């Protein structure tokens, strides 16, 4: 025991505290500086990627406008006319929350969707963002947005093999979005 003390020089608690304080102060300062520089760039990038993903969903739109009293809702306009709504959709999939953007015409037809974040099984559930599952939604109305496993049923959405839960979740999110848009557009 006494030997250990001889090796370890005694330090006052004050010295130790000063050491930690200086480290933390310097750390905070550096992070603050870097954030000051990168934050505007990151925000700009996010805005651009948002615009781009909306553009990819509604390719003939020339302008996107935020809907005033709905958070994260956008209207896609072409020559001043509203041709589509781009709204966020959400539901629980196989591996957790699935977040997506859905583009819907004012008459309540699905144009396309984009999955923003998901935790589905790679190779099975994550095929939801790929063909041929995705293109099935094009032009579908609320009534036909149900998942079927019957291959002869051409009106509804064909489930992905091995990923029925993911298929249902995506379809439900799209359906809810369509429902909301129909209500919103119809009520105007």
């Amino acid at each position, binding site marked *: 025991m006494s030997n250990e003390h001889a090796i370890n020089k005694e330090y006052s608690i004050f010295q130790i505290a000063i050491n930690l304080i200086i480290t933390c102060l310097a750390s905070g300062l*550096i992070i603050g500086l*870097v954030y000051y520089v*990168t934050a505007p760039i990151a925000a700009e990038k996010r805005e651009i990627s948002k615009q781009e993903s909306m553009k990819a969903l509604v390719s003939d739109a020339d302008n996107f406008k935020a809907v005033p009293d709905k958070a994260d809702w956008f209207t896609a306009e072409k020559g001043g006319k509203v041709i589509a709504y781009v709204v966020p959709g959400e539901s629980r999939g196989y591996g957790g929350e699935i977040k997506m953007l859905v583009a819907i015409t004012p008459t309540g037809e699905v144009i396309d969707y984009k999955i923003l974040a998901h935790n589905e099984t790679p*190779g099975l559930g994550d095929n939801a963002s790929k063909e041929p599952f995705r293109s099935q939604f094009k032009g579908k109305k609320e009534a036909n947005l149900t998942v079927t496993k019957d291959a002869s049923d051409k009106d509804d959405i064909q489930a992905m093999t091995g990923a029925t839960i993911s298929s249902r979740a995506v379809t439900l999110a799209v359906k809810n979005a369509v429902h909301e848009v129909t209500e919103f557009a119809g009520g105007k």
Partner: protein
Amino acid sequence: MKEKWKIFSKGLYDENPIFMLCLSLCPALAVTSSVINGLTMGLCVTFVITSNNVVVSLTRKLVNPKVRVPVYITFIATIVTVVELALQAISPELYSALGIYLDLVVVFAIILARAEVFASKNKVFPSFLDGFGMGCGFTLAMLSISVIRELLGSGSILGFKILGSWYNAPLIMILPAGAFILIGYMIGAIKLHNAHKEAKKIEGSEA
């Protein structure tokens, strides 16, 4: 000069963080499903470990040995946060692909180990080489795992299709389990190679 090279090169093979020390396997399983993710992760870790080694070495006489671990962790956390902020500004897609594993770099055993074992006792330049070598070894391992996984699991490399549509990709290569099996085989192969080399050496000295 030879000594310096040795400090650098031991991280590449003899003490490769993944294949030899079996450290940081968790991100090695999680983010190596595509080459670009594996490579970005490798480069981030290289940057963090190199700059952390430099900072630790610079401050080795100032830091109180009683609180050295919290101080080192603060250093690492600061550097990782800086990397994250930069990555968010440069490429948000990569940032979201790496997700939680980028935060986890803070607690990578290999980084703290290099700070403790090497940088806190050595001058700045050797510490830099040590960190850089370890980082390169890590990147090399991540790269080789992710190349094999992406090729077998999706039939592509860096997103370019290499194998045609006839190739029915086995799902397991994309899943973490596939990575685990693959790493096992790779470690096995390396061990086999080493044993082979060793045997040859003994044979040579006897002859």
